[in-house]
């Protein structure tokens, strides 16, 4: 049984009339075990892009084939699995024979069969990611597994189907499986894959060089297999009359959960966080409560982490009204840090969007502000990636100049990594 521990970081002191309470809750999971071992089965699907562009250069399709095979090696025996190739429509790569379900149990012979099947995958046709997701959903639902995860690889834009199909497919896949998305090369759309990964509780990343794909797939599947906790939910209890302003994952990456809550009682909203391995994540929660007189104390939120309807750990967010300015004006370092990191992510994304739209003034301003925030919050990786897109003249004031002839891949790298955060030092 996995162990969980939650710790809350906040300044609980509010000035007279103060109503906004911010807190960071850090959750640590240990002894998670392995996927599919705690209760019920795990299921994995590898979806590789088999569109025509994957053959140009064919290094991409070759990398995809070997990466998929490496991923198969990481899937634990007994796990349900399938491989799907996507182009204008999805095609089952494995299993395809007359079995009762379109998934196979992993063992040494199914693994070998699947590898042979993957070797026969060739690229042709277009890119219709929505149809691939729908296929994955159908295949996943054919077996009674409780923990479903997919890897989705593409090299292109979703241009062979109505965008509404992708939108609908994401909606249908939500809650069925988690999906890590990878884009190879420079011809896919960061925004598109991020949309899928965000909704399906997965990661998004750029594989600039096909040679790095094997290692990336291996790591992704290792991580998926180490997630012995199938489904952890965050319950946010807020007092009567209070308003949950936002709920946001802030480490290891930023994910806004605010609109994903379901009301399970008048006081409690539940947010999905997906499956967990031995790891820690942090969440930023903001609540607006009614002001109370100086000296009063009240609970602003209970942050409960729930597995199978059982609370495994809880953190309390408090509000204490005080007229001592030394107490009420202090900003908690964790809250300050992650507020800065969240701003950094949106400045990068907005800046790049402005740049793409040809609005250089806004782009310069936003990316300048991003450079300033990256320096101030000690996010050296972000600074490094920013420096490939802008010349940072003065990080302290956020003075930057847009670089000429920026590599598209550098811009995409900056964009995909924008939500990755550094921890509080």
């Amino acid at each position, binding site marked *: 049984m996995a162990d969980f521990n939650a710790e809350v970081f906040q300044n609980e002191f509010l000035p007279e009339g103060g109503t906004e309470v911010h807190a960071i809750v850090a959750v640590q999971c240990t002894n998670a075990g392995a996927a599919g071992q705690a209760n019920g089965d795990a299921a994995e699907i590898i979806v590789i892009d088999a569109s025509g562009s994957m053959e140009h250069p064919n290094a991409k399709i070759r990398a995809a084939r070997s990466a998929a095979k490496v991923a198969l090696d990481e899937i634990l025996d007994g796990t349900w699995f399938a491989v799907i190739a996507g182009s204008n429509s999805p095609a089952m790569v494995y299993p395809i024979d007359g079995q009762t379900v379109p998934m196979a149990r992993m063992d040494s012979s199914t693994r070998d069969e699947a590898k042979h099947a993957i070797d026969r995958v060739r690229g042709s046709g277009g890119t219709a990611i929505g149809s691939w997701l729908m296929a994955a959903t159908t295949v996943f639902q054919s077996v009674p597994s409780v923990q479903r995860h997919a890897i989705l690889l593409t090299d292109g834009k979703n241009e062979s189907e109505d965008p509404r199909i992708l939108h609908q497919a994401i909606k249908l896949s939500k809650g069925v499986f988690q999906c890590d998305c990878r884009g190879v090369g420079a011809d896919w759309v960061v925004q598109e894959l991020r949309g899928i990964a965000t909704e399906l509780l997965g990661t998004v990343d750029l594989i600039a060089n096909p040679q790095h794909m094997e290692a990336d797939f291996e790591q992704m599947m290792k991580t998926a297999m180490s997630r012995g906790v199938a489904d952890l939910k965050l319950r946010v209890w*807020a*007092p*009567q*009359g*209070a308003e949950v302003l936002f709920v946001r994952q802030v480490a290891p990456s930023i994910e806004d959960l605010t609109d994903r809550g379901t009301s399970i009682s008048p*006081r409690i909203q539940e947010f999905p966080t997906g499956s967990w391995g031995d790891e820690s994540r942090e969440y930023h929660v903001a609540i607006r*409560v009614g002001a109370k*007189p*100086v*000296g*009063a*104390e*009240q*609970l*602003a939120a*209970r942050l409960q982490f729930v597995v199978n309807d059982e609370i495994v750990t*809880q953190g*309390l967010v408090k509000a*204490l009204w005080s007229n001592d300015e030394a107490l009420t004006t202090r900003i908690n370092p964790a809250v300050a840090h992650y507020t800065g990191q969240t701003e950094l992510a949106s400045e990068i994304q907005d800046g790049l969007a402005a740049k793409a739209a040809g609005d250089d003034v806004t782009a310069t301003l936003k990316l300048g502000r991003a450079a300033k925030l990256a320096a101030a919050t000690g996010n050296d990786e972000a600074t490094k990636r920013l420096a490939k897109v802008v010349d940072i003249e003065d990080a302290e004031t956020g003075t930057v100049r847009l670089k000429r002839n920026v590599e598209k891949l550098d811009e995409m790298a900056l964009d995909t990594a924008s939500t990755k955060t550094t921890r509080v030092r």
Partner: protein
Amino acid sequence: MSEVVLSTLTCSSCGNAVVAGDSFCETCGAEISPSATAAVAATAPSGERSMAETQPTPVVRLCRECGALIAADGYCGECGAKGRTARDHWEEQPVPWAAAVCDRGLVHARNEDALGLVALPEVGSFAALIVCDGVSTSSNSDVASLGAAHAARDVLGTITADPFAPVSARIMRISAAIEAAGAAAQMAASATPITEGGAQSSPPACTFVTAVVERKLIVAGWVGDSRAYWIPSTGPAELLTTDHSAAAEMIEAGVSRSVAESSAQAHAITRWLGSDSPNPVPQCATTTVNCAGWLLVCSDGLWNYCSTATDMAALVATYTASANDPLPIAAALVQWAIGQGGHDNIAVVLAYIPAS
């Protein structure tokens, strides 16, 4: 000495545990039948002193602000208000003729008031009423005050009654006991550790007052500004104590009571118990009982709203006119102070003294 175990009492209406001496069930709000309280008193064999031991008890509690259940984490499940702990509010009634109520009030986050009460079952025969008010500018004062009040109570509970000795000898004996009780309270207060982060503040400190009644003789002893009042049914009421406070010094110097007590420095006490106490030895005063009346010991959480003996007597009279069970009266006095704003913690210990 019989020990009262609180959690063995249950509400006859809902079956949940109730606190000895409570008038109402914390769970369902039902009035607690007198038999439950009587059962507590009955556990003390005649002639033995009764005292209620107060400890935080894990009972089901309801929110004072919205009435919903207080969750296991100590906060209301609906409105998030901090649940009242056993330290925030408790009541004691070791014998039917004496009772005590302590409450956090509305404004302070902690209840730094504490009290102690020990009595013999026979009405008016012997009781020691104790209040300690923790100094809020020092750390951990809630611990110091409770430790001091209990230490004093344990000493005063051992007084050997000798009601037929000459009055002067009785006064000497009781004063000596009060001095010993004060010393024990001082030990407890100065032994209280300073809380983490409290290094810059002063060490834990509290006031101390006791009024001991023994067959028509009352001896009061005090350090600081917690008070004892004797309120006879006829004749003028007496404030037995003189505050060790800046206000009292101003009054001594000729400033009117109302002006002095509303001045900025009014609440600065000049004597207290604690490791940095300039003089922890209680000052004593005495009076004799000529008619039935009420002996009241309280903290400034009550007397701030009702300072003079005349005003206090008038206030007490409004609740004693139709009843003489001290517990609901003490509770009503506390409620009255909360109604005045509840700006401070409130401790009220009250005993009914018969005419003969």
